[in-house]
Structure formats: structure tokens, C-alpha cells
């Protein structure tokens, strides 16, 4: 069970959270101007690196706020968490 450092509440057990998948996926707009390939990329083609991945998490049984986490998919180490509207630099 991971220990997830909520930016608002501090480290809490994983069971309080919901993982929301890859973060910072830009939603292409307006619908009428988005090509099929771009829409398919938005829907289906997400990163799956071995290593650091920026993800969305919800502190569902806590402050109920969404935030971002940079988690290593190889060993689950969480390098950084930060608010949903931020995108701090992080060495790849």
C-alpha cells in the first residue's frame, strides 16, 4: 500500500485515494476542428513509461481535491506531488 503525500493533507494511505490516470493530457478543442488522429491520441494513446509518470490523483476519502503526482512506474516511488493547476519542472 503506497503512502501518498497529498499536497493539502500530507502523507496518507493509498486506500484514501483514487488514481485518475495520466495527468496533463490536453483536451483538443473545438470538437468540429479536431482531426480523428488527434482525438484518438487524446482518448487512447497515453504514455506508459518505465520510470516517472505524471498522474492525476484524487484524495477521495480526505480533502476530496485532485492533484498531480510524479510516480515511478518501476518502483512506485512518488517523487513529487503538486496542485492540479501547476506543472513544475522535473528532470525526466
Amino acid at each position: 500500500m503506497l503512502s501518498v503525500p497529498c499536497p493539502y493533507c500530507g502523507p496518507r494511505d493509498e486506500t484514501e485515494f483514487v488514481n485518475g490516470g495520466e495527468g496533463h493530457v490536453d483536451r483538443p478543442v473545438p470538437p468540429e476542428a479536431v482531426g480523428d488522429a488527434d482525438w484518438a491520441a487524446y482518448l487512447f494513446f497515453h504514455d506508459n513509461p518505465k520510470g516517472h509518470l505524471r498522474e492525476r490523483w484524487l484524495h477521495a476519502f480526505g480533502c476530496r481535491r485532485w492533484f498531480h503526482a510524479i510516480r515511478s512506474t518501476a518502483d512506485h516511488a512518488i517523487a513529487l506531488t503538486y496542485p492540479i493547476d501547476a506543472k513544475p519542472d522535473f528532470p525526466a
Partner: protein
Amino acid sequence: MSGFRLKDHPRAAAAEIGFRFNGSDYRGRAGDTLAAALIANGVVVVGRSFKYHRPRGIIGSGFAETNALVQLGTGAHTVPNAVATRVPLREGLAASSVNCWPSVGFDLGGLNDRFSRLLSAGFYYKTFIWPSWHLFEPIIRRLAGLGRAPTLPDPDRYAARSHACDVLVIGGGPAGMAAARAAAGGGVQVTLVEADDHVAMEPLPNLRILTRTTASGYHDHNLVTAVEEIDGPVVRQRFWKIRAKRVLIAGGAFERPLLFGCNDRPGVMLAGSILHYLERHGVAAGRRPLFAVVDDQGYDVAIAARRAGLDVVGIVDARPEPGPIAAAADALGIAIYPNHSVTRAIGRKVVSGAELIDQATGQRIRIVCDLIGMSGGWSPAVQLFTQSGGTLRFEDRIGAFVPDRSVQNARSCGAARGIFDHADCIADGAAAGHWAATGEDREVPEIAAAVRAPLHLPPPGAKAFVDMQTDVTVDDLRQATDENYRSVEHVKRYTVWGMGTDQGKLGAVNGVAVLAALQGLAPGALGTTKFRPPFAPVAFGAVAADRLLGPFFHPWKHLPAHHWHVAQNAVFEDYGWLRPSHYPEGDETMAEAAHREALAVRGRVGLFDSSSLGSIEIRGRDAGRFLDLMSVGSPSTIKLGAVRYNLLCNELGTLMDDGVIARLGEDHFLMTASTSHAERVYRWLDEWHQCEWPLALSIAEQTARWAVLTVAGPRARIVLENADCDVDLSREAFPHNQIRSGRIAGVVARIQRVSFTGELSFEIAVAADYAESLATHLMTCGAAEGIIPFGLEALDLLRLEKGYIHIGSDTDSRTQPADIGWGKGIARKAGDFLGKRSLLHPSASAPGRAQLVGLQPVDPAVVLPIGAHIIGGDPHPSRGIVTSSGFSPMLERGLSLALLDGGRALMGSVVTAWSEGRSWPATVADPGVYDPRGERLNG
């Protein structure tokens, strides 16, 4: 072997304890383990082996025991597969061997031994194929069972605790104690867990010691689970979840058996365990022991046994040149056989001697003995370290795997990383403790190289066991290798080596060394199999720990008027919420009750509890704009006081949920969601608001604050008019799809005219606390109109007659709005909304999509099974599926909803529904067949 108790050991003076083993009464001493007491009583055979039914005795001590599995207690309290070496003796303890049908002494299973070739590696896999597993299964199951699982609920109670500390030390031996002392000296909070019942160190204010506590699992982010044995009058075990900043693993090492013929005979034991029984329990496992060793460590035991007064008949040293310690043994008169090894244990049922071979000359000799102590070297207990993700490397110095690279904040120290000298262990533990407290590394002692004998592979046919619990021999590994199994993980599964309850604690390192030798590789070249939690067996009850049992496993949500429903004789069903399915009268069946209730709603009036419907309020300047982005329609155009049906799609353009949106104010909307989707819809709105469109609004999930009672039926208005309601209920002032606020019997209420039955319907929401009084009030006010409560089963018939759908039942993960007849709004809507781009894709309007239709069986008495296929498709025979079904009380015929490929173009045609070999003709029709113009609804 004839074990006995040493008279001059303090344990001999301890209180006597009576216990029962395999139906016989014995006496032991307070402080004994069951194993120690059995040895002291001269009990030799404690079980029969898994596959071949060979007699087995106690081989080890502590966690290092693979044979002496016992069933404890009886009935609901019974515990299977307890290791006798870990069971503390208690007055009245009753234990029996797990695998000895019909008895330990009776040798029927010995037949298996004679037919061992048929039961060799891969036996299970091969038997599944030929001639038939079922032919062998009953007898194999009986012969090969390991203990009996209790058939009754566990009556014991378990507790759970979460704990956080700076440093967790696992193991209270010399290295663990030194580590805890050093870490505590650094001022941090330290917790030490030890499986044994005491830790011989001084108390410290910032050190917490948990004895009788076994670390069972090492999980992500330094979470260690541990089981504490309480055995108290109330609680049997306590399950700990310990989160530590740093973890020090000082779990010691396991001695390795030697591989020789019949090394599983009762009377063959690990040398270190013989010492354990001598020193800790004052029990000798035999009178004339022989020791077989590969390095200096085994000598210590032989010397201690000699000093305890045993007639040590010799030390068989596999090395050509024994170390300097041989002189000490020699001085005590112990015969030493250098460059010899044991080829087999002699004795039919128990050890009566050993055959040795001189490795230089090939000459064999026999020695009479009643106990063989074997020491094949020591393997660090790396189980928890590998569970933490740490990697291992093979260290030739000790012939075993040691921790290499840590992934989590964890280190091993002492014997757990291959350091066996007592003083070195203390220094290593202190260095680890210093690191854990400060993060600083400290010099650790150089470990002197030792001379040890290499592995000798026993010849084919020797019956040398690598894993005794699963009855896997060197020959089985040989056969797997011959059949080209190479990976240790594959061999493990093929032979079941290492898959017993001891998880390879004794056999893993020997096994990989044998496999490497068979493949012509260096001993560590193949790596080792992965160790998984738990380190030692854990009772399910301990994991559940009283919190996850029965009604606590997944607590029901109760309607605010639950007790009122109980009083109305409601039968409840589990929808996450406990909701009334029907209210039977007399001995009515569910179908009969639902039929009666539905007719009452159509003919008079009924009361339905809608409180579990999701109720979500959206308020703020941008509320309308936000709802437009979230919805297929345009909620921002809903007029004040009006209500509109609404659909939510995901970005794939497929349906998530439906419901209604009411406009309570300029910037204030109320959305309802279906019961099963309420939490998901709230989370969905909230995610898009927080992450994508942080507009000026707030979202509040209000379901639990409101009780919602629906009065439905042609007489619904009369009921409300009698109910002291200050809202103008007339058709002109309060038409369908409107919402009003007011008071009913003085209580603030919101009333919506929406309908899921097709009848005139008022949904009355009041504060949840008023649920029961409002229900009682409405029933009283409706008595003259013949009001009755109705449940979900009746509602299901009523909505089926109207063709109203349940998203998720009548739709699937591909269904889009147009497939249920809501395509027009999308073309009209100008702005963006979730799923719009997907709905603009040609696939959304492609012909042949599965569309919602009604089905009317040609024989009106037929009710199609839900899930029935509509057949006749090409190339796939199924072209649709029945999603809802029931017998319509009003039309007096079976009715169904279905998702049918290109369904709307098939109106009026007859299709064939098929289920489990039966088929029925049915006519494709509009989904709604009752009051299609909605006159009753608008009434």
C-alpha cells in the same frame, strides 16, 4: 531416534503440562514448544509426506520446519498446518498430524512411494491430460491433503492496529538488538518485532518491543504487516500495519539440509535445531548423534552435544582439510571423518545408522547412530528483503543469496546478510542502526573468508529430498531439467518445489544450486525464485481483523425511512442501498406482489421511496455553462422552476447516466442521478470542474440529506391535496416537468412532477429526518384513495410498459444517445460538450449500430429471459440481446427491451430470441407501448 529430557536443565523443573497428540496423552513442561515436548516424549514420526506418504519427523525449529505440520483444536477453532516448532505448549492442547490418513503408523500411502515414478515431476500436469484427472483425483486428494480447513466461521476475534515509527527492526537476535539500541540512541522512535516470546535487552523510552510478533509481509513504501500472537481470552491475534521511515531486517538465517539418500527419515535433523532443543528446552533429540557438515559451523553443535553428555559418534566433514575447529572436537574424543559425506540414512522407518563414502577412495562405511545432524551451511532469511523489491546476489563464501541492492529504505544486517560470527553481527547491527537513525554509513567489519565444501549431487535413484513438504527430490529436478525446464520459476511450478506452506525456507537455495549444477552453471547463476508474502502463514481472520466480516464487509446504506419499510412488511434487496423490492401480502410470491402493486399504481395510487436517487446541487455564476459542457442537452436553457430529462456521456460519446435537471434559481441547479451511478456522477462532475474547467460554481452531493417519496398514480393529486400542502397542485399551475418549493404538513419540501412510472407523479423531497413521518402522513392522507407502498419490482414493470430505460442495463459500453433515440439534440447543440467529438465521428451514425427497441413475443404468455440473444445475424449469429423483461400487468403479455443491430429499421418484423437452447419468435416494436402519447403522465 529416542529423544529425552536432560535432567540438569532448568526446564526439567518447570511445571508439567498435559497435552494430546494423535489421540495419545503426553506430558510436557511449561515453556516447551509442541515440537520440544514431542521430542522429549520420544515421539519420532509426526506425519506422513505429501505425495509418497513417507514417514516424517521433526527436522528443525522455529520457522525452519517443513515436516511437522499439525492440525490444532477441533470444530470451528481448528487451525490447519500449524508448525509444531512454533506452537507453544498449553494445558489441554490437542494436535494431530495433518497428513496421515488413516494413521501415522499405517503405511498404505507407502504404496505411493513404490509407484513414485508415476508421481514424479509434472505429474499433475500430465495427469490432467491423460487419461483423466478425475480418475485419480479422489484418491490423490485424500492422500495428498495438507490439513483440513475449518468448515465453520472462525469464532476467534482478531484486532488490527496501524502504527508509524521512524525505524522498524525486524528480529530481536544479536544483530537486531544492536540495531535497535543504536537507532534508539540516535533519538528516533524505534519499534522492534520479534517472533519469540522475549527479547533480551534493556527497555528504552523511545523503543517499543513487540514480542510474539512475526513480520509477514513487506509492501510498498515501507509498509510492513505483522501478526502478533495474543492467545488471550478475547483476542487471538493482532494484525499490525507498520509504516516506518527506515526498516532494518535482522531476521537471521536458515540452515540448509544436506542432500543424501533418505535425508527425510525421522531422525535426520538440522544441526542447529538439535542445538536449539538442547540449549533452549533441555531436550536431546537422540542419544547417539552423528553430524554431517560442510564448514566449521556444524562443529559447534557437535561439541555442545558432547558437552551435554550425548554420545557423539562422529563428525562427517565434506572438506578434504577440516578447519582448526576440528582439533577442539578431537580433544573431546569425537571421531572426525574428513573428506567423507553421508550417502544415505539407514533405517526403515526411523534412523538407525548412516552410510558414508570416502570421496577420495570411494570406499563406503556404515555407522550406527540414532540421530543425524546435518549442516549444509546457512542461508540468510532474504524473504522480506526480496518482498521489498530488493535484489539478491549469490555469495560463494556462504553458498547462498544475500541482499544486494535496496529499492526501499531498507537494509539487512547480521545473519540476514550472511554475517554469522556473533561479534560481527553485533557490530553490523550497530552500524545498521546508526544508519537508520542518521542516514550515515559506518564502517562494517571485514568478514573473513571460510572454507566450505562444494555441493555434491546425489546419484540418480538416491531419494534425496530437496523440498520435503512437497516431496520433491533431486531426481524430480533432474527430470525437469531433462525435459528442458530452465528457469527456476518454471521448474518451481512444474515440480511444486518450494510451493508448500514453508515457501522454500529449507529447500530454495539447495534447489537452485542443484538446478545450476544440472545445467552446468555456477551455483548462483540461475538466481532464485521470488518470495512472496506472507513470510509465514497468516489466518484470514487476522487480515480481516473483525472489521471486514459479515455486515461490516461492505456496509449497506439504509433508506432514511428504513424502519417504516420494515413495518410495511417490505422485502429488501441489496443495491448498495437496501431497497424494498416488494411488500408481500399473505403468502404472495415476489411476482404476484409486483403484479398487484403495479396494477394499484395504474388504477389508484402508490407510494415509492426514491431517496437513494443521487441528488447533486450545482450553484454559481457559471453553473449553466458548466452543465452544458457536461451534458448532451443544454441545461442552461431550462426555465426557472422547470425540469428536463438529461443525458451524460463520457468522451467516447457513450452513455454514463441519465436523470433530470431542475432549475431552482438563476444560478442554482439540482441534478438527479440514478442510484447506482450517484457517486460516480458526482465524482465525474467534480473531476471536470477541478481539473479542466475551474469555473465559478460549487458542486454538492446532497443525497443523504433528503428523503424523497414519490406519490404516483391517477389519484396522486387527490392524496396531496389532502396532505396539507401549500403548493398549488392544479394541472395548470403545476404541469409535468416542473418543480415547486413549499411546505407539506408544515415541513419544507421540494416537489417535482417527474415520472418513471408513466403515471401522474409527485416526487416530494423533505429533510431526511422527516422520512418516516412523511411516509406515515401520505399513507394516512391516501388511505381513502387506496394508496399502497410499491417496490422496485413493480416499478420495473411500470417503466418497462413505458419503455423507460436503465442506463447500464438497457445500454452497454458502446451505446450512444442516438442509439436510444436522442440523436437530434446533438446536431442542434452549438457548443462543446463531453463526448461531442466522438459523436461527430462517422461511426456514431453508421448503419447497423445496436439500437434500443421493444420486443413483444408472438406468444403473449412468453417472458423472454434477460440476456437472451436475438439470432440470425451474419457473420456472428447474435445480432442483439434482451436487456429487460417482464410480464406486463396492463397488457397482460410479455414485454422486453433489447439492443438490436439496426433495430429501428426492423420495426414490425419478427425476430428470433434464443437462450440456452430454446427460442421464441418476437415482434420488434417501439420500446414504450403503454399510453404512448403520455396523457396519463401529464394528467
